[in-house]
């Protein structure tokens, strides 16, 4: 009986170790678990169509923006409001300038940035800004990489 217990336990641990080999984030997009997660997120998101990061603490802001990057389908089309520092970036390959609202985590060592589209005048780099826009994903011409940004955004400098 004891031997059987050992065998079952060790086999279970080995099976768990092998099943621990998960999937890359790209592969996850095609699996059932993401669809279930999307359903769960959609159910939660139905409670509030807007995501206001200015009402959250730094940890939650960082985690929510991370979730937006990892599971963009759940946030597509939602109105997002966030505060951070303005940071432009010019891609030397295509000459385009991208405008980001960057937030740091509690330790200040890691940061996440959200691109936004705005027609007005941009402030100096490093200015604290508040951006509101509609979350969308897109692909650049000639690339299969998925990017996310806030479209139809409004921006104001925060004092």
């Amino acid at each position, binding site marked *: 009986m004891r031997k059987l*217990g*050992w065998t079952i*336990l*060790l086999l*279970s*641990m080995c099976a*768990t*170790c092998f*099943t*621990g*080999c*998960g*999937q*890359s984030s790209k*592969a*996850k997009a095609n699996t059932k*678990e993401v669809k*279930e*997660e999307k359903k*769960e*997120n959609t159910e*939660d998101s139905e*409670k*509030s169509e807007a995501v206001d990061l200015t*009402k*959250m*603490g*730094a*940890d*939650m802001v*960082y*985690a*929510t923006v*991370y*979730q937006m990057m*990892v*599971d963009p389908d759940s946030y597509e089309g939602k109105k997002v409001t966030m505060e951070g520092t303005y940071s432009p970036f010019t891609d030397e390959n295509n000459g385009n300038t991208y405008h980001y609202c960057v937030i740091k*985590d*509690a*330790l200040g*060592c*890691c*940061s996440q940035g959200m691109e936004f589209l705005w027609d007005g005048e941009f402030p100096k780099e490093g200015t604290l800004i508040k951006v509101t826009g509609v979350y969308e994903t897109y692909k650049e011409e000639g690339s299969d990489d998925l990017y996310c940004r806030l479209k139809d955004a409004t921006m104001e400098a925060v004092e």
Partner: protein
Amino acid sequence: MSEWISKLEFYLNYPFVRYALIVGVLISFCSSLLGVTLVLKRYSFIGDGLSHVAFGAMAVGTVLKLSNNMFLILPVTVVAAVILLKTGQNTRLKGDAAIAVMSVSALAIGYLAMNVFGTSANVSGDVCTTLFGSTSILTLTKGEVILCCIMSLLVIVFFVLFYHRIFSVTFDEKFTMATGNNAGRYNLVIAVVTAIIIVLAMNLVGSLLITALLVFPALSAMRIMDSFLGVILYSAGISVFGTVVGMLISVTFSTPVGSTIVVIYMILFGCNCLLERVMNR
């Protein structure tokens, strides 16, 4: 007060916060069970050593661009745990020296690999997140939560089924062998379980603070309880309580998750020391 409670209610609407709480509770429960055995066997710093080995493996996995770093982290950490815990007393390199050698070597190799061969734009940030786990626990997917649940269940089943053997191996290995039980086999499984818990716990408190998760609940329980079973149960209770309180405070007040949990553990340890004096034990 009501503002904080309503803020917490708002946060709990997000699935990733609920996942973080579930995983945090399970990891702290399993670590506390393991921590009692490790503290009594004088292996308190093994968590530190193995977490640094896991960090090194994670760094190498990142550099090699593995689709999932678990391919490398779990086996490497298991092998390191087996080497450290199973080699016994008749080795040239004894317990604390072996842990020190393995720990700093893995840490140095990992950081060197990330700096020299890494392609991340923010190496310091990646290292920082892994070492301190500031928001890692809030970035778990449903699949990772399920995996954690399964592993935690296996650990708990192991402890329940083999409680008496673990007790005898913890206090007197020679007696265990004399009674016909294979102490080496139990040490091997304890080593594997330790490695699994360490790898899971890195998401909760980061590599540098894992020792707190293993040690503080066990030491707090030993101030109050007399029996092995009492220490284990009290340790599990303190561990889960400290983790839940730490995580809720961290999420509400935007403090780093790992550090907040460890500070709560420190406070609980202090309270138990005071309680011990009051009870004149």
